[in-house]
């Protein structure tokens, strides 16, 4: 195919002959006579079906076969950039992918540490507001005023203070709520509010079981899990969006969800370890926490928490947790 020159003013294609003279590209033929200095030429990258396009500063362009052009371009001293030359080699592409996988694995491993550093640097009340809003929302939708008598509430609060002794606990406020739709459970909100449900208190057969649950929730506060989770989840969302781009929001959503679930499980494990250390330190057997966990599991009716769904849920399978708590 002959080289075609476009003068940049009209869309007409002019077939031209090419030559080189004194550092200039010479175009001639069909009424066209033009010389363009080498430094006024921008060459398109290789890899476009063996055609090249030259753009001339001041207007105009040329489309020609790569084979025809290369000799001329070399004579003019115009070379492709290093990346352009290398990117078309299969070895580079495959090498790039291997490196990517390594980077991804490294990032996966490093993300908790990075989130940790960032979370420790952010002010503690960075998401306290979110916690307050969450509590307000829960009070509207899931919580009813507690029916636990005030003396019992104070007894629990006092017992925690007594057991903790001179320990420095993370700032917290114990709140009591009735939650018929949630059942026996406890929540640590990033504002420092720790909510105990009436159903949990009813389920407990010994106050130390409640202390165990409180220790676990304090573990969440101590580890700033809500804050770290928020920092981690935005990193995951951005990474997923970059890789999956606009293809199947399905894929991006699913992967982000799976990764998130794992981080939440790590946080639960951390909270369990904090609780275990706390209980042992104050001569309370961790089995207390295990016992109430088991009862909560049974009352929630999840009789078949099998391994497969374990990975997908945000709480590690309760049997696993109980076993880790009972281990010496």
């Amino acid at each position, binding site marked *: 195919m002959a080289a075609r020159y476009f003068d940049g003013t009209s869309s007409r294609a002019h077939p031209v002959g090419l030559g080189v003279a004194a550092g200039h590209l010479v175009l001639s033929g069909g009424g066209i006579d033009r010389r363009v200095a080498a430094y006024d030429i921008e060459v398109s990258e290789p890899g476009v079906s063996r055609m090249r396009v030259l753009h001339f500063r001041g207007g105009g362009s040329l489309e020609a076969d790569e084979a025809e052009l290369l000799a001329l371009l070399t004579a003019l001293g115009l070379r492709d950039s290093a990346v352009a030359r290398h990117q078309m080699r299969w070895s580079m592409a495959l090498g790039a992918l291997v490196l990517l996988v390594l980077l991804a694995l490294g990032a996966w491993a490093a993300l908790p540490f990075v989130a940790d550093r960032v979370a420790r640097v952010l002010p503690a009340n960075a998401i306290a507001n979110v916690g307050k809003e969450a509590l307000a929302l829960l009070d509207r939708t899931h919580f009813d005023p507690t029916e636990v008598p005030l003396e019992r509430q104070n007894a629990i609060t006092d017992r925690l203070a007594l057991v903790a002794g001179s320990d420095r606990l993370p700032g917290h406020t114990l709140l009591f709520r009735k939650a018929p739709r949630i059942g026996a459970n406890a929540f640590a909100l990033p504002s420092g509010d720790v909510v105990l449900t009436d159903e949990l208190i009813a389920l407990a057969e010994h106050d130390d079981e409640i202390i165990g649950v409180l220790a676990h929730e304090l573990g969440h506060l101590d580890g700033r899990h809500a804050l770290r989770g928020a920092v981690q989840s935005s990193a995951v969302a*951005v990474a997923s969006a970059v890789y999956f781009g606009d293809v199947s929001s399905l894929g991006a959503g699913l992967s982000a969800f799976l990764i998130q679930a794992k981080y939440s499980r790590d946080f639960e494990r951390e909270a369990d370890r904090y609780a275990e250390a706390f209980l042992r330190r104050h001569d309370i057997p961790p089995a207390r926490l295990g016992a109430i966990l088991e009862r909560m599991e049974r009352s929630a009716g999840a009789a078949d928490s099998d391994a497969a769904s374990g990975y997908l849920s945000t709480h590690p399978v309760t049997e696993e947790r109980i076993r880790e708590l009972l281990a010496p």
Partner: protein
Amino acid sequence: MVPIATESSAAMPRPERAAFTGTGGEYFRIWAVNLLLSIATLGIYSAWAKVRREQYFHGNTRIGGASFGYHALPMAILRGRLIAVAALVAFQVSGLLSILLNWALVIFFFVATPWVIVRALRFRLANTSHRGIRFRFHGTMAEAALVYLGLPLLTVLTLGALAPFALQRQTQFKVAGAAFGTTRFGFTASPGAYYRVVATTALLVVAILAAGAAPILMFLAQNGWKPEPGVTPPALAIFAAVAAYLAVILVVGPLFQVRMQNLVWNGSTLGPHRFASDQRYASFFPLQLVNAILTVATVGLFRPFAIVRIARYRAEHLTLVPGASLDAFLTDAAAGASATGEEFAELFDFDIGF
């Protein structure tokens, strides 16, 4: 007998089918290196990666014997991206600090949308060329506000009834505002045609979702609409629901895309010329299905191949029907455009393209 002098007839040029000359293998190599360098440089290289990608696709798209050019400067794109990232970070941080501030930013971004869209279109078109002539965009921010803010709001108020109308107006804004040199594009597809496409697609989606939800609804009906905790629907019912969801994406999605592409291109004109698009669901659906399966099976590695397959399909089913000589287009010397708009649009996943 004196021969009657006739105008040396430039016979009407014949219809030109577009072509895509790129291959999956070629693009895969560009894509892999782009991905590595973009991630290794924490996204800085992504501006160069984008230019490389666009130049590959523009340069391999040919019509009437000439390819397209993409001229955006990586630095301009990088600037735009940094601003977009700063906005995203500000949004995330505001969410941590105060719900009020978060909502203020939401409203700000909403209002800024027409500005972003107009700048993105101007930037993209001004940096696209064909036969040495640049494209242009002449749509105004007032029009953009009307079709991208006003109409969507009305659509929400009418519970979606205005959606096809809004879509038609938005596409009209994009197409009729575009120009190739001094020649303006035109858009003739009617709102009625949009309603037909959206209505038939919507009916299909509803039918599939109803079929998929039926087993679960039956289960709920049998259990008095409020099942005890621990009583779960049979696996088959859940499977049916998930299958319906996938069917909507994989089966109805391509149908909608094909009909929309045909509708838009068949309704587009460029001066005296027209376009014709003859995509068919029967050929596009298998292509997309294979794309989806292979992309998932290869954890995304097939994606560059999938993108090339789609580009090739779309090009090969697009024809330019000339109404005059193709040499007659003239350039329009107008000022350049900056990149910020396009990068905002890309980061927040607006569909700017045709």
